[in-house]
């Protein structure tokens, strides 16, 4: 579900960066104030655990395919929302920097899509009320599956919205939604099962290591900074979407253009000049520039 840089426009990427950075700052403050000193190495090691867990597959009964843990929900169960959000954000940052998974501009979107929903919505509003304090029963399994599915559905829908607002992919909205949501329903199911399997095992083997939210701060995320971040994000998304809607032919116009032939499509997009001459120059210049850049690289390599 990682979005790539190449599909995000600077406006959308920047807006999501601001939202995610604000959430990170808020969560960092909360973790610092919680004054659990040992949480620092714990967060680091659990991040590494999620990385490793993503490489071990289990078979999905009856289908012949396999899946793995995504990590957001289990981190929330183990650490509580603010610390879990920081760990997810750090995992995604390392993936962007070292594995070329996602990208720098899309990092804000990815942190938001994969971090906010499991940590601040699925865990506090679905998992905790449903699972309660029980750790062995079928309720844990049901809660984990429902929370994971909800988190991933919301995340997948955000991916669609952000891609759409960026206007780089031509996939029509409806098609994209129909592509993304069912796939992530399956992925969410798998994620929920994996999370429940690990949680019930740890509950049996070492119950004291499961996170117990301190009395009084069981409110999702502990309040204001998170809410403020979400509001800012919502406002920014709204702004971008409306701006986008006014400058770009929407799905309806698009389908009209498709059914009535090609001409209106060409009219609807006046940006680049269409002429053999300019595109020829562009191609020549482009190739030449590339060669020039390569030559400069060679020169730099020689004289060190």
């Amino acid at each position, binding site marked *: 579900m990682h979005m790539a840089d190449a599909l995000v426009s600077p406006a959308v990427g920047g807006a999501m960066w601001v939202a995610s950075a604000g959430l990170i700052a808020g969560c960092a403050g909360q973790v*610092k104030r919680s004054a659990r000193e040992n949480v620092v*190495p714990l967060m680091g090691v659990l991040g590494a655990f999620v990385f*490793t867990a993503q490489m071990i597959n289990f078979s999905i009964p009856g289908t012949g395919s396999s899946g793995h843990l995504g990590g957001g929900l289990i981190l929330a169960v183990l650490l509580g929302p603010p610390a879990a959000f920081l760990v997810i954000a750090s995992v995604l940052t390392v993936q962007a920097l070292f594995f070329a998974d996602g990208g720098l501009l899309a990092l804000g979107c990815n942190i938001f899509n994969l971090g906010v929903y499991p940590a601040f919505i699925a865990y506090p509003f679905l998992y905790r009320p449903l699972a309660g304090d029980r750790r062995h029963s079928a309720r844990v399994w049901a809660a984990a599956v429902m929370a994971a599915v909800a988190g991933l559905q919301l995340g997948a829908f955000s991916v669609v919205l952000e891609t759409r607002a960026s206007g780089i992919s031509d*996939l029509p909205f409806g098609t994209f939604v129909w592509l993304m949501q069912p796939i992530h329903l399956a992925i969410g199911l798998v994620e929920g099962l994996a999370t429940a399997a690990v949680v019930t095992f740890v509950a049996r083997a070492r119950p004291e290591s499961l996170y117990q939210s301190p009395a009084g701060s069981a409110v999702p995320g502990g309040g204001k900074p998170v809410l403020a971040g979400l509001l800012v994000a919502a406002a920014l998304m709204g702004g971008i979407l409306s701006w986008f809607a006014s400058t770009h032919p929407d799905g309806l116009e698009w389908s009209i253009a498709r059914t009535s032939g090609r001409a209106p499509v060409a009219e609807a997009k006046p940006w680049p000049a269409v002429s053999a001459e300019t595109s020829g120059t562009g191609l020549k210049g482009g190739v030449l520039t590339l060669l020039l850049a*390569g030559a*400069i690289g060679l020169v730099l390599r020689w004289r060190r």
Partner: protein
Amino acid sequence: MNAGHWLEVDRLEELARLEAPAQRVDARVKAVVTLVFVVCVMSYSRYQVSALMPFFLYPIAMLARGRIPAGYLFRKILMAAPFALAVAVFNPFFDRAPMAALGPVTISGGWLSFASVMLRFLLTVGAALILVACTGMHRLCAGLESLGMPRVFAVQLLFLHRYLFVVAEEGGRMTRSLEMRGARLRALPGRVYGSLLGHLLMRALARADRVYRAMVARGFDGEIRLLRPTSLRGSDWGFLLGWTAFFVAARIWNLADLLGGLLSGGVS
């Protein structure tokens, strides 16, 4: 679990320790230049191809000045390509309006935007990898912290990076021992998976506990101290201003078109 994959990550860190001109540039400067680069590249309209070409100068120059093998970097980028490809590959089918002509061949807008997306993918992902390859995690985190990243998050990144390999090796040992006991399975049955991952989690928790005790034994008082980055030198300012000016210039004027026009004008 692919051990080769992990060794490759370690290699990125090794490259960062080289003594080369690109590695000597201050981490903050490189981070800012990379961000400007990515924003400039992504701010083009979706049909732009030729104007992106001048931006290849930056990664190529950094590869040369940082002694980073281009083939290695390219392979890493290819591993991440499927997602961008998966979404962009539909463009040619949905957008068939003719956009450009090369002699007798007309190119549809879809193909043009497909090429544009793939080029941008190459540029932006390459720039991020280059940033790490010529900076290294420690200097990068210290630099970002002094640029305003919350310290808790900087420390979290460093811890994650440090224990990535430790926990991954633990996981590798567990899967190897499982395989040696005869379970040559690509995917594990649910019960086995739960207990395997649960054990891995408990080992990770035990490791975190040991790390914490070791930190306390060395005087950890709840406050993490990061290395202070040194002040910027003249050459750092030159790097920052020079590249930013180049990116902005390339963004405002289509340098490739100018060059092509110059050439065509000179020939005819």
